[in-house]
């Protein structure tokens, strides 16, 4: 579903590559986790795949398409859930979803039905008419997720979709994502919650300094790593314990 070939990104004025010569294949139907410490290059990689950043070199294809030739067709096939709450605070949840859904050209009737279904599944039906600025962090995360999946994308990119939410909201979000995956959506997500990734992902890649340091099925990675009991042990073993502070 996704073929990435020698992809690199170096920001203007930066001395180092955020993503360096990265190659990766992700198959249809996978839930693929991109894991790594702060500044490892996860968000940069996802941003390139979502058409938010231009690669410095290399290329990639999603569902056989690339942005330079089929930008709109590709954007119709992908869904994006950014790390920030990408919502209008003074609009209601319903108004936000109607607007973002309309940007995919969805017919009104289908869009309204779809919004209602997602709101029901994520426990937000009673709050559809409330302004987003009155929502808790968990509620905003769920609306943020719905805005990215209204058009039924074939590939869904999520940048830390459960950061800063309570356990209940996290469970609801992950359960909904599992359902989407079972319905055929390929999911690529980044997270700092390694236990969550271990349970949720069919395959993960650990990225550090812009390169993939290891990838595979979580259980296999744990088994391959000496003295590792879980994915966090693998992560620390591969990326080290030094603090990663960037300014």
């Amino acid at each position, binding site marked *: 579903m996704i073929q990435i070939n020698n992809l690199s990104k170096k920001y203007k004025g930066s001395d180092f590559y955020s993503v360096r010569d990265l190659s990766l294949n992700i198959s249809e139907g996978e839930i693929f986790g991109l894991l790594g410490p702060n500044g490892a290059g996860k968000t940069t990689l996802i941003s*390139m795949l*979502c*058409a*938010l*950043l*231009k690669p410095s070199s290399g290329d990639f294809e999603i569902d056989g398409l690339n*942005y*330079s030739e089929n*930008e*709109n*067709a590709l*954007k*119709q096939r*992908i869904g*994006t859930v*950014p790390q*920030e*709450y*990408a*919502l*209008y*605070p*003074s*609009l209601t949840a319903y*108004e936000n979803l*109607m*607007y*973002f859904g*309309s*940007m*995919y*050209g*969805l*017919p*009104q009737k*289908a869009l309204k039905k*779809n919004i209602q*279904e*997602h709101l029901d599944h994520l426990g937000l039906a009673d709050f559809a008419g409330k*302004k987003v600025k009155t929502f808790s962090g968990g509620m905003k995360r769920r609306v943020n997720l719905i*805005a*990215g999946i209204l*058009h*039924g994308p074939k590939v869904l990119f999520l940048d830390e979709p459960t950061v800063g939410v309570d356990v209940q909201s996290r469970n609801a979000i992950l359960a909904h994502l599992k359902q989407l995956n079972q*319905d055929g959506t390929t999911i690529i997500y980044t997270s700092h919650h390694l236990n969550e990734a271990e349970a949720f992902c069919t395959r993960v890649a650990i990225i550090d300094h812009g390169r993939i340091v290891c990838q595979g099925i979580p259980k296999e990675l744990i088994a391959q790593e000496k003295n590792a009991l879980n994915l966090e042990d693998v992560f620390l073993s591969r990326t080290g314990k030094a603090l990663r502070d960037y300014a």
Partner: protein
Amino acid sequence: MSFSLELEKPSVIMRKLLASTHKELLLLTRDLGGLAVLFLMPLALVIVITLIQDGTFKTIKQHKIPILVVDGDGEEVSQSILETLKESDMFALSLKSSEAEAEALVQNGTYPLAIIIPENLTKDLNSKVNENVAGILAKFGLGEDIPYSEKTNRTVKEVRLYFDPATQFSFRNSIKSGIGQMVAKIETQSIYTAFQEEVSDNPTEKIFDTEPFIDFKEIIPSSGKSATLPNSTQHNIPAWTLFAIFFIILPLSINMVKEKNQGTFIRLRTNPVSYTTVLGGKTVVFLAVALVQFALMLLIGMYLFPLLGLPQLDVSGRLPLLFVVAFFAGLAAVGLGLLLGTVAKSQEQSAPFGATFVVILAAIGGVWVPVFAMPRFMQALSNLSPMNWGLNAFYDVFLRNVGFLEIVPEIGLLSAFFIATALMAKVYYERKNAV
């Protein structure tokens, strides 16, 4: 939850445009404070400016400018000067005996002006005129000339004017010009009187008609149509409405910068929607705001101004053309706002730049100082200001009473400005966000 996706047909583009427009409308109406500022501040601006400008003349008539006079002469000529000043109905005269005292009162701002009439002004003027008249009559054999050796050696008499340093250049100039005319008239009268005394034994006999022969009359050209007498309202409503319309670039650019900061713009960039559609929604809503602003301005001019003692705005027969001009001026303003909102990264960039830029455009556009009164370079520059094009079109309709064809050049320029700025915004966006 699956459904088939449509191709990008015109109907889909229209659906996206309508959704964008609806969203912009919702965002605008949810910010009631911002909406009130958007509509009320321009109204306050036009009311205040018109009251001030209309009141300038009334202030002079009703309250009079206080001035000091030091009468060192105390005779006929100074009395004539004082009478003329009183008759002008512009000044409230206060007499002082000392020039130093008058100078001090003007220097500290108590009075804007002091007029110092020199000693022996009447005596010396009469003496000079009499000598000149005697000389002329002697040439015609009607008397004896005074020998050159007996002629008085006089220095030029100075009527000194002290101005408060804070008074404006234009005020000083008009006062100087007025006093100059007055003095010239008195000198002429003295010459007539001297001739009268020399050639007639009867002082009551009127030999000369001393009334001015050349006069002037102000006529408003009307090109055969009904003439509109310009007043402060007819001048201010177009100028300041245009100023207010262009101020729309502030809320528009702030709206766009906010979208970047709150992340919604990031999401839009991942959506299959063109930047043109996004800008289209903003254009429709903010253009509508500009037209509502304009309608409110007209209503204020027509119905509120008379209640405030200001001249009523006369829009009879011009309403459709006025809205045509407002539409294209609004488009130009929106285009500028779209460009600023696209380029600016923060509100700290967009707000001060936008506000200052509008003031500059207004200044070079002739909103404050008429273009003909500007230096040559600024006159050339004013041709590049969309506010100048809009102002000319408004004046054409409001004051020159022209038809649609006459305003086509101006509205053409305003349209071209919108297209150019919107295109620049799109090109900048696409270059910045190419993937």
